[in-house]
């Protein structure tokens, strides 16, 4: 294909991405260098790097960063393990039953996150089913504390993302080489050995893909935390996204919020840049 044809095809897409992603990003960096609140929205006040420094010195920012990190550290491995396990199980059943199970398993993934969190929360309200079970089984009342709210957020994260890992692994399992497995059986390998030595290596590139995507998504978690904590700082369960949001619309410091958003991007870039470089090299190779 000629270069001009490429630009004609990809033109609209590139145009809209530049206009509505690249430019706003630059604007955000610029806005981060201004002191902006709702009172002076049309005349921002230039303060240079002061907002950025203020964010870096903000304890709650680092607290939210830590919690986001903790969230990622739990949700990503947990979804991969659970997803892998259920995919293996799903592989064992007939095609028809598979279809039914898959429809049920996909539901958490397709539900509107706000709605899904709402549903999750209703289970733990004073009138909720799980509150009741918790009290009956464990004998103590279920209370919203720092710990319990965070646990709920993590459980929700698992519930919401597991289907993604599940389905991806499941598809990967379908492409396993039957010959390899048969050869292993003849050699007397047990199920566990087969899993360890054949299945897992085969799924390596998939695992990396799931790891990458769920890490990026986990970093940006917002909707569930927004609903489950009702933006109450007492639970100390802010993530970087919710704290940025709070800074913008509750504390009313728009400049600082922009600075925070930019610094958040810097944070994810640390994870992302190695991957971008690898992707770049891969693409160049494939050319």
């Amino acid at each position, binding site marked *: 294909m000629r270069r001009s044809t490429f630009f004609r095809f990809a033109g609209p897409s590139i145009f*809209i991405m530049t206009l509505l992603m690249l430019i706003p990003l630059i604007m955000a960096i610029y806005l981060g260098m201004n002191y902006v609140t709702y009172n002076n929205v049309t005349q921002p006040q230039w303060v240079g790097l002061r907002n950025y420094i203020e964010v870096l010195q903000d304890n709650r920012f680092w607290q939210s960063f830590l919690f986001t990190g903790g969230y990622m550290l739990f949700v990503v491995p947990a979804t991969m393990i659970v997803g892998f396990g259920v995919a293996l199980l799903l592989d064992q059943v007939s095609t028809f039953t598979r279809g039914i199970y898959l429809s049920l398993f996909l539901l958490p993934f397709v539900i509107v996150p706000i709605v899904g969190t709402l*549903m999750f929360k209703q289970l733990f309200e004073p009138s*909720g089913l799980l509150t009741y079970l918790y009290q009956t089984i464990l004998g103590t009342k279920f209370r919203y504390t720092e710990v319990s709210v965070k646990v709920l957020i993590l459980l929700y994260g698992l519930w919401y993302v597991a289907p993604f890992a599940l389905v991806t692994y499941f598809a990967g399992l379908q492409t396993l080489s039957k010959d390899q497995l048969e050869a292993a059986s003849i050699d007397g390998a047990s199920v566990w050995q087969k899993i360890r030595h054949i299945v897992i290596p085969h799924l390596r590139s998939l695992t990396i893909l799931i790891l990458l995507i769920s890490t990026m998504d986990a970093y940006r978690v917002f909707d569930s935390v927004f609903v489950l904590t009702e933006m109450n700082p007492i639970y100390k369960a802010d993530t970087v996204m919710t704290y940025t949001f709070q800074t913008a619309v509750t504390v009313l410091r728009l400049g600082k919020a922009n600075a925070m958003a930019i610094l958040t991007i810097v944070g*994810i870039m640390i994870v992302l840049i190695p991957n971008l470089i690898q992707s770049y090299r891969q693409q160049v190779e494939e050319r």
Partner: protein
Amino acid sequence: MEKVKSPTGRVLIHVALILFSVYSMTPFFWTLLQSFKNLKDANSRVPKFIFTPTWANYEELWLRSLPENGATIAFFLMAALVILVCLLLFAKYIPVRNGVIYGFVIVGFVVLLWAIPRVLDMAKFYDYFINTLIVTVGTVTVSITIGCLAGYGLARYAGMAAVVVLVAALGFRALPRLAFVLPYYWIGAALNLLDTHLLVILTLVAVNQPFTIWMLRSFFMEIPGELEEAAMVDGCNRLTAFIRVIMPIMWPGVISTALFSLLLAYNEFLLVRLLTQTNWTLPVAISRYTGGEDPRHLTLAAASAVSATIPIMLVILFFQKNLVKGLTAGAVKG
């Protein structure tokens, strides 16, 4: 993997899968249950599974007032809906061209949606539902159109520009929405586009593009280049070859990608919340009930949650295979 043979093994497998299903579905079932309860039953500390169900929550959500001949109207609306769905499902068996049938069904749905507020006194929630439909359909249409073009270009062009675009897109995909939202607000205010569907659609399309073009590109790369080469030799230009030869084969992949665009547009909360003042979509409308300002909101929230989920559930039931295929698009490429 070959199947486990022992009966106990198979039973255990099903038990495990059923448990996981329970885990996946419990929030939804509990909310469904709560949505049919009156206030006292719903707030009861001991969960009630036996109670007198009521439609009151849904009525309050969707209708401003009940019409006298409500049952007749409901029946006719349901009948219309069933007829349209039948046409869609059994398009193969009707001796009319598929395109005509689909067109008719789409027009039928639009007429139905237009007619409902004129026969029933619908509440604001209906307007929010319509907004959601408009935004979703708009986003999917635009996103897929320009995404297909871009994905095709990226799949067939071997130069550096494509690499740059792809890697940049990957980078953009990782960026948090909040970084863009405030600048979007400024842009929207400057162009006087705030509170319009157009702004929301455009921003959603932009935010969605990286994912869309990566996915479509991987689908396009599965189709050999010889196909359109042959067509071009016959005298078509690139674009015509693309439309006539490639796209018909690509439909499954396009549908998969369209589903993801649909989910993204339907589920969007933050962008809609900050960029619109009155033309909200369902996720924002539902957030009215999450503030804990009235115990009655518990059942209304449940009803609104179920109302928002039913359409999506129908979508996955219909398109389950495509959704799975889409999720694994990256998988096969690795």
